[in-house]
Protein backbone atom coordinates (compact mmCIF):
# COMPACT_ATOMS: atom_id res chain seq x y z
CA UNK A 1 0.00 0.00 0.00
CA UNK A 2 1.19 3.47 -0.87
CA UNK A 3 0.02 6.93 0.12
CA UNK A 4 0.93 9.92 -2.02
CA UNK A 5 1.80 13.21 -0.35
CA UNK A 6 3.47 16.29 -1.77
CA UNK A 7 6.78 17.29 -0.24
CA UNK A 8 5.19 20.58 0.80
CA UNK A 9 2.33 18.92 2.69
CA UNK A 10 4.69 16.48 4.38
CA UNK A 11 6.83 19.44 5.40
CA UNK A 12 3.75 21.17 6.86
CA UNK A 13 2.94 18.06 8.91
CA UNK A 14 6.48 17.84 10.25
CA UNK A 15 6.65 21.57 11.02
CA UNK A 16 3.36 21.28 12.92
CA UNK A 17 4.85 18.50 15.03
CA UNK A 18 7.89 20.65 15.75
CA UNK A 19 5.70 23.60 16.72
CA UNK A 20 3.59 21.58 19.15
CA UNK A 21 6.66 19.89 20.73
CA UNK A 22 6.97 18.75 23.52
CA UNK A 23 3.27 17.98 23.14
CA UNK A 24 1.61 15.90 20.48
CA UNK A 25 0.08 17.72 17.53
CA UNK A 26 -2.62 16.32 15.30
CA UNK A 27 -4.92 17.06 12.40
CA UNK A 28 -6.83 15.62 9.50
CA UNK A 29 -5.57 14.64 6.05
CA UNK A 30 -8.02 15.32 3.22
CA UNK A 31 -7.75 14.04 -0.29
CA UNK A 32 -8.99 11.53 -2.79
CA UNK A 33 -8.85 7.80 -3.19
CA UNK A 34 -9.15 6.64 -6.78
CA UNK A 35 -8.55 3.04 -7.81
CA UNK A 36 -7.12 2.38 -4.33
CA UNK A 37 -4.59 5.22 -4.80
CA UNK A 38 -4.68 7.65 -1.91
CA UNK A 39 -3.46 11.19 -2.47
CA UNK A 40 -3.39 13.79 0.30
CA UNK A 41 -4.33 17.24 -0.97
CA UNK A 42 -5.06 19.35 2.10
CA UNK A 43 -4.52 19.38 5.85
CA UNK A 44 -6.77 20.58 8.64
CA UNK A 45 -4.69 21.52 11.68
CA UNK A 46 -6.62 20.95 14.89
CA UNK A 47 -6.18 21.61 18.57
CA UNK A 48 -5.10 18.67 20.70
CA UNK A 49 -8.15 18.46 22.96
CA UNK A 50 -6.52 16.28 25.62
CA UNK A 51 -5.93 17.76 29.06
CA UNK A 52 -2.76 19.89 29.04
CA UNK A 53 -0.89 17.54 31.39
CA UNK A 54 -1.46 14.56 29.07
CA UNK A 55 -0.70 16.18 25.73
CA UNK A 56 2.93 15.03 25.78
CA UNK A 57 1.84 11.47 25.00
CA UNK A 58 -1.84 11.67 24.05
CA UNK A 59 -3.97 13.48 21.53
CA UNK A 60 -7.70 13.86 21.03
CA UNK A 61 -9.69 15.23 18.12
CA UNK A 62 -13.17 16.00 19.35
CA UNK A 63 -16.31 14.85 17.66
CA UNK A 64 -17.17 18.51 17.03
CA UNK A 65 -13.90 18.94 15.13
CA UNK A 66 -14.64 15.75 13.18
CA UNK A 67 -18.07 17.08 12.26
CA UNK A 68 -16.43 20.31 11.07
CA UNK A 69 -13.81 18.29 9.18
CA UNK A 70 -16.48 16.26 7.43
CA UNK A 71 -18.25 19.46 6.37
CA UNK A 72 -14.98 20.99 5.14
CA UNK A 73 -14.24 17.84 3.18
CA UNK A 74 -17.69 17.99 1.57
CA UNK A 75 -17.22 21.67 0.75
CA UNK A 76 -13.90 20.91 -0.93
CA UNK A 77 -15.29 17.87 -2.75
CA UNK A 78 -12.77 15.84 -0.81
CA UNK A 79 -12.73 13.15 1.88
CA UNK A 80 -11.07 12.65 5.22
CA UNK A 81 -8.51 9.98 4.37
CA UNK A 82 -6.66 9.93 7.64
CA UNK A 83 -5.13 11.55 10.68
CA UNK A 84 -1.62 12.81 11.31
CA UNK A 85 -0.07 13.12 14.74
CA UNK A 86 3.36 13.47 16.29
CA UNK A 87 5.30 11.32 18.75
CA UNK A 88 7.56 13.62 20.79
CA UNK A 89 10.82 11.79 21.54
CA UNK A 90 9.33 8.46 20.51
CA UNK A 91 9.51 6.35 17.35
CA UNK A 92 7.03 6.85 14.52
CA UNK A 93 5.39 3.51 15.26
CA UNK A 94 1.77 3.14 16.45
CA UNK A 95 1.52 2.73 20.20
CA UNK A 96 -0.79 0.26 21.91
CA UNK A 97 -2.97 3.24 22.76
CA UNK A 98 -3.02 4.19 19.07
CA UNK A 99 -4.19 0.69 18.20
CA UNK A 100 -6.88 0.64 20.87
CA UNK A 101 -8.49 3.79 19.51
CA UNK A 102 -7.72 3.34 15.83
CA UNK A 103 -10.44 3.25 13.22
CA UNK A 104 -10.09 0.97 10.22
CA UNK A 105 -9.58 2.37 6.73
CA UNK A 106 -8.10 5.68 7.89
CA UNK A 107 -4.42 6.34 7.25
CA UNK A 108 -2.50 7.22 10.42
CA UNK A 109 0.62 9.23 9.67
CA UNK A 110 2.99 9.48 12.62
CA UNK A 111 5.96 11.83 12.78
CA UNK A 112 8.72 11.30 15.29
CA UNK A 113 9.94 14.56 16.84
CA UNK A 114 13.29 14.22 18.59
CA UNK A 115 14.43 17.13 20.73
CA UNK A 116 12.07 19.40 18.83
CA UNK A 117 13.15 18.35 15.34
CA UNK A 118 11.20 16.14 12.96
CA UNK A 119 12.97 12.81 12.55
CA UNK A 120 10.83 11.10 9.95
CA UNK A 121 7.25 10.12 9.23
CA UNK A 122 5.65 6.75 8.57
CA UNK A 123 2.06 5.90 7.78
CA UNK A 124 -0.08 3.04 9.06
CA UNK A 125 -3.47 1.47 8.53
CA UNK A 126 -5.29 -0.71 11.06
CA UNK A 127 -5.81 -4.28 9.92
CA UNK A 128 -9.37 -5.62 9.85
CA UNK A 129 -8.71 -7.87 12.85
CA UNK A 130 -7.80 -4.74 14.85
CA UNK A 131 -4.75 -6.55 16.23
CA UNK A 132 -2.03 -4.69 14.32
CA UNK A 133 -1.26 -2.14 11.63
CA UNK A 134 0.02 -2.46 8.07
CA UNK A 135 2.45 0.15 6.85
CA UNK A 136 1.50 2.42 3.96
CA UNK A 137 4.61 3.55 2.15
CA UNK A 138 4.76 7.33 1.85
CA UNK A 139 5.44 8.33 -1.73
CA UNK A 140 6.53 11.95 -1.77
CA UNK A 141 5.41 13.97 -4.76
CA UNK A 142 7.31 17.01 -5.97
CA UNK A 143 4.97 19.65 -7.37
CA UNK A 144 6.52 21.63 -10.22
Amino acid sequence: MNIYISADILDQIQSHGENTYPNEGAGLMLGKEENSKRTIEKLLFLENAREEENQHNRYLITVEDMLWGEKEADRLNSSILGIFHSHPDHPNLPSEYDREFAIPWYSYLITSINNGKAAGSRCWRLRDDRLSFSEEIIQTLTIR
Partner: protein
Amino acid sequence: MPTLKIPTPLRPYAEGHSTLNLPGQVVEEVLEGAVATYPLLKKHLFNDEGKLRPYVNIFLGEDNVNQLAGLKTLLSDADTLLIIPSIAGG
Protein backbone atom coordinates in the same frame (compact mmCIF):
# COMPACT_ATOMS: atom_id res chain seq x y z
CA MET B 1 -37.90 3.48 9.14
CA PRO B 2 -35.09 5.58 10.64
CA THR B 3 -31.98 6.09 8.54
CA LEU B 4 -28.44 5.35 9.73
CA LYS B 5 -25.62 7.11 7.88
CA ILE B 6 -22.41 5.10 7.75
CA PRO B 7 -19.11 7.05 7.77
CA THR B 8 -16.59 6.33 5.02
CA PRO B 9 -14.24 4.18 7.15
CA LEU B 10 -17.03 1.78 8.08
CA ARG B 11 -18.65 1.40 4.67
CA PRO B 12 -16.46 -1.56 3.66
CA TYR B 13 -18.04 -3.46 6.57
CA ALA B 14 -21.56 -2.61 5.38
CA GLU B 15 -21.06 -3.81 1.82
CA GLY B 16 -20.27 -0.26 0.73
CA HIS B 17 -23.55 1.28 1.84
CA SER B 18 -23.48 4.91 2.95
CA THR B 19 -26.98 4.79 4.44
CA LEU B 20 -29.10 2.04 5.92
CA ASN B 21 -32.81 2.09 6.61
CA LEU B 22 -33.48 0.01 9.68
CA PRO B 23 -36.48 -0.59 11.91
CA GLY B 24 -36.24 0.63 15.48
CA GLN B 25 -38.02 2.77 18.00
CA VAL B 26 -34.85 3.69 19.87
CA VAL B 27 -31.22 4.23 18.82
CA GLU B 28 -30.12 0.92 20.30
CA GLU B 29 -32.51 -1.06 18.10
CA VAL B 30 -31.26 0.61 14.94
CA LEU B 31 -27.63 -0.15 15.83
CA GLU B 32 -28.51 -3.73 16.71
CA GLY B 33 -30.26 -4.02 13.36
CA ALA B 34 -27.18 -2.69 11.59
CA VAL B 35 -24.78 -5.21 13.14
CA ALA B 36 -27.30 -8.04 12.67
CA THR B 37 -27.50 -7.21 8.96
CA TYR B 38 -23.78 -6.53 8.59
CA PRO B 39 -21.95 -8.56 11.26
CA LEU B 40 -18.55 -7.23 10.17
CA LEU B 41 -19.60 -3.83 11.55
CA LYS B 42 -19.95 -5.17 15.06
CA LYS B 43 -16.35 -5.22 16.21
CA HIS B 44 -15.81 -1.68 14.96
CA LEU B 45 -18.86 -0.26 16.74
CA PHE B 46 -18.88 -2.34 19.93
CA ASN B 47 -16.15 -3.63 22.23
CA ASP B 48 -15.95 -7.19 23.60
CA GLU B 49 -18.32 -6.21 26.42
CA GLY B 50 -20.97 -5.12 23.95
CA LYS B 51 -20.55 -1.43 24.72
CA LEU B 52 -20.07 1.25 22.08
CA ARG B 53 -16.36 1.81 21.42
CA PRO B 54 -15.15 5.09 22.92
CA TYR B 55 -14.60 6.73 19.56
CA VAL B 56 -18.12 6.00 18.31
CA ASN B 57 -20.52 8.92 18.67
CA ILE B 58 -24.11 8.74 17.53
CA PHE B 59 -25.80 11.95 16.44
CA LEU B 60 -29.49 12.53 15.90
CA GLY B 61 -29.37 15.49 13.57
CA GLU B 62 -27.11 18.02 15.32
CA ASP B 63 -27.47 16.41 18.76
CA ASN B 64 -25.17 13.82 20.28
CA VAL B 65 -27.53 11.18 21.65
CA ASN B 66 -25.45 11.20 24.85
CA GLN B 67 -27.04 14.59 25.50
CA LEU B 68 -30.48 13.09 24.89
CA ALA B 69 -31.43 9.70 26.29
CA GLY B 70 -28.36 7.86 25.00
CA LEU B 71 -29.07 4.56 23.29
CA LYS B 72 -32.62 4.71 24.59
CA THR B 73 -33.34 7.92 22.65
CA LEU B 74 -36.70 7.60 20.92
CA LEU B 75 -36.79 7.80 17.13
CA SER B 76 -39.40 8.52 14.52
CA ASP B 77 -39.40 7.03 11.05
CA ALA B 78 -38.16 10.31 9.57
CA ASP B 79 -35.09 10.53 11.83
CA THR B 80 -31.53 10.21 10.57
CA LEU B 81 -28.74 8.96 12.78
CA LEU B 82 -25.09 9.73 12.04
CA ILE B 83 -22.06 7.82 13.27
CA ILE B 84 -19.28 10.37 13.83
CA PRO B 85 -15.93 9.07 15.08
CA SER B 86 -13.84 11.02 17.54
CA ILE B 87 -10.15 10.40 17.15
CA ALA B 88 -7.66 9.64 19.88
CA GLY B 89 -4.22 8.16 20.19
CA GLY B 90 -0.89 8.61 21.83
